């Protein structure tokens, strides 16, 4: 807790940003986000877009796994549902970009509700396996419902249009993708100040106790699956517009594992953890490439040491899990605490 930030009301106690310093830093962050596209080149804008999409998706998985304690390895399938829905609507119906994203999220929500049904009976690894089954079933559909999904060749997605503007490059798309991500993050952060969010946390901490306290497990577990899938669907829709091509191979099991790793590395059950985890998993491989590029080596040696990057990335993940099992969010909080209490020891 920050020194000298006494709360006089419950509303102040519940506020997302509870001090002037926090609000000031938030202002700095928003200013940086606004200035970024004017200073960054196409490469960094692309990475920013990719991080934003991954943040939305990881936040969705965090709602389910981090906050409700339900492990899912089918997250990529819901991304796929959102992506295909958006691709089909955009290419065949030509409906509004934002409507497509909402419908994409809605279709993924329905998928999530169906896949979440067994969650009342099974949990832990058993639930993880049942969600993998959902992933394979949906992949089968993506491959074989050729008339709708285009089969193995997939679908090409026309660029998004907003108020007559064609969002066909990273710079233009940035102005849609980042505000949407911020909006969805605020939505998720606020969720956990409501009865629903607290019910999710109660289920995660001890589901039997939660039921004794009057929380209907099936309803809330399904709600968690639905919300998580909605985020995944919207992320999938953004993904479709971002990459402009959707194929069944775009949503493999490995993508689900990537998102789960991001949740764990970032910190389960915190919004900040989802953001940091997604940024870490997306940017660290690129940063390692930059570091290798700065080394005074050229030619074939560079080719030989390239695989070391993958090893370094793996070692970093293992290192975080060993030395900070609560994830990057906890490291961030520790650093903040140090400054809050300085010059006293934390």
């Amino acid at each position, binding site marked *: 807790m920050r020194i000298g930030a006494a709360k006089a009301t419950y509303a102040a106690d519940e506020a997302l940003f509870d001090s002037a310093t926090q609000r000031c830093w938030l202002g700095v962050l928003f200013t940086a986000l606004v200035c970024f596209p004017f200073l960054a080149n196409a*490469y960094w804008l692309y990475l920013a877009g990719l991080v934003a999409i991954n943040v939305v998706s990881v936040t969705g998985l965090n709602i389910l796994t981090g906050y409700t304690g339900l492990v899912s390895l089918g997250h990529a399938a819901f991304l796929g549902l959102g992506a295909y829905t958006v691709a089909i609507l955009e290419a065949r119906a030509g409906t509004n970009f934002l409507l497509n994203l909402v419908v994409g999220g809605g279709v993924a929500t329905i998928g999530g509700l169906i896949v979440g049904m067994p969650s009342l009976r099974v949990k832990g690894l058993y639930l993880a396996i049942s969600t993998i089954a959902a992933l394979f079933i949906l992949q089968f559909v993506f491959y074989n419902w050729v008339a709708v999904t285009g089969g*193995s060749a997939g679908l090409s997605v026309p660029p998004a249009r907003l108020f007559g503007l064609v969002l066909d490059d990273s710079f233009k798309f940035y102005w849609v993708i980042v505000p949407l991500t911020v909006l969805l993050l605020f939505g998720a952060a606020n969720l956990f100040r409501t009865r629903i969010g607290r019910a999710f946390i109660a289920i995660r901490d001890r589901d039997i106790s939660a039921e004794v306290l009057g929380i209907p497990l099936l309803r809330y577990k399904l709600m968690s699956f639905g919300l998580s899938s909605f985020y995944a669907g919207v992320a999938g829709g953004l993904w479709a517009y971002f990459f402009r091509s959707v194929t*069944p*191979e775009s949503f493999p099991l490995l993508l689900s594992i990537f998102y789960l790793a991001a949740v764990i590395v970032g910190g389960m059950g915190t919004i900040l953890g989802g953001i940091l985890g997604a940024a870490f998993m997306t940017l660290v491989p690129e940063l390692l*490439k930059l570091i290798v590029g700065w080394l005074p080596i050229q030619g074939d040696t560079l080719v030989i040491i390239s695989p070391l*990057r993958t090893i370094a990335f793996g070692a970093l993940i293992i290192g975080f899990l060993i030395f900070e099992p609560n994830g990057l969010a906890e490291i961030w909080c520790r650093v903040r605490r140090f400054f809050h209490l300085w010059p006293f020891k934390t």
Partner: protein
Amino acid sequence: MSNSFIIRVLQLLGLAAGILSTAATVRAEEEIVIGGSIPITGVFSFAGVNIHAGIGDYVKLVNDQGGVMGRKVRYVYEDTGYKADASVAAFKKLTSQNPVHLYYGDSTAFSKIINPELNRTESILMTGASFATEINDPRKYPYQFMVGPDYQAMFALLLKYIAREKPNATVAFVYSDSEFGRDPIEENKKTVANLGLKLVAEVITPPGSVDVSTEVLKLRRADPDYTIFHGYVLAPIPEFISLARKMGMQSQFMGTFWSMDKNNIMKMGEDADGFLGIMPYRYSDDASADAPMLEKIRQIRPGYQSTTYLQGFVAAMLLLECAKRTLEADQELNAKNLKAAFNSIKNFDTGGIIGVPVTVKSNSIPVGRIYKADLKNGKMVPVSDWLTTE
């Protein structure tokens, strides 16, 4: 310190910066830059490392001979780990930092994703590792081409060979359940019928599967004269052939480009003796007199070079040929002009890497030859002439 001194220093710094930036611009204008999203790591690294070597060697060869129309060629690349999002990141990074004119992409997924960007910028001509049939469409992919025939054409050439060798033969297709595996299947079911052949089995396996015993049983029941594998590099082809031979099957096994590297086939063991397949290039140890470029490659890198090395080498050769033709016509190096130069390629000599003069068709080089594995002599032996798709 007087104000005039400070102003003079600033003026000098400004002048120096101006000279440096002008020099950099001149240098950039005089260069031809090839960018590459190359899978040095990841599941496709076996090919990526060789493709990288092939492109690098050809660029060095050209630069040693004075470049293209006096312009030096620079090859810049980034490792992608064979992930489409990383390939796009590499593309964005390289094109942000360098005036890239030509590009090599590492996968079909990347070719599809980057296509709208190529069409929007109209500044880069791209080729890559993909032989996907979809890309062989100049209307949808106006600024891309492939370094060989597409998968449908490869399959069709194999079927044509079968029809000639054994009319009315029975055929089986074994392919992976992936975009790569499924690519040529539907269209070539029609080709089978048109050539008077009979498709007796269609076996689909998960990509990279190892236990294929049930699939081999299905194949044995059908007992085809010829079995064509597609959508694999190595596994499960050796397992398939080994089990089939143990069950007494006499089927002639065949493959397409990615399963036709000599080193991989030789590793399959004696069951692979006689394995047939299509290859758009000569093998690097082919000492034919009309292949001086292969001799040059052997001088640069003694020993056998994989087919993926040759793919990278020919890709760089064709990209730079397009640049040369564009510059010869005194035109700007942009995607439209470079693609027009590509379309003008007729009877082009690859120095014998492709055994016949090359004429492009759509976005492809529709030429290939059937080779047979001779395990005893450790060679891939041609069993057909160079075949061209209609």
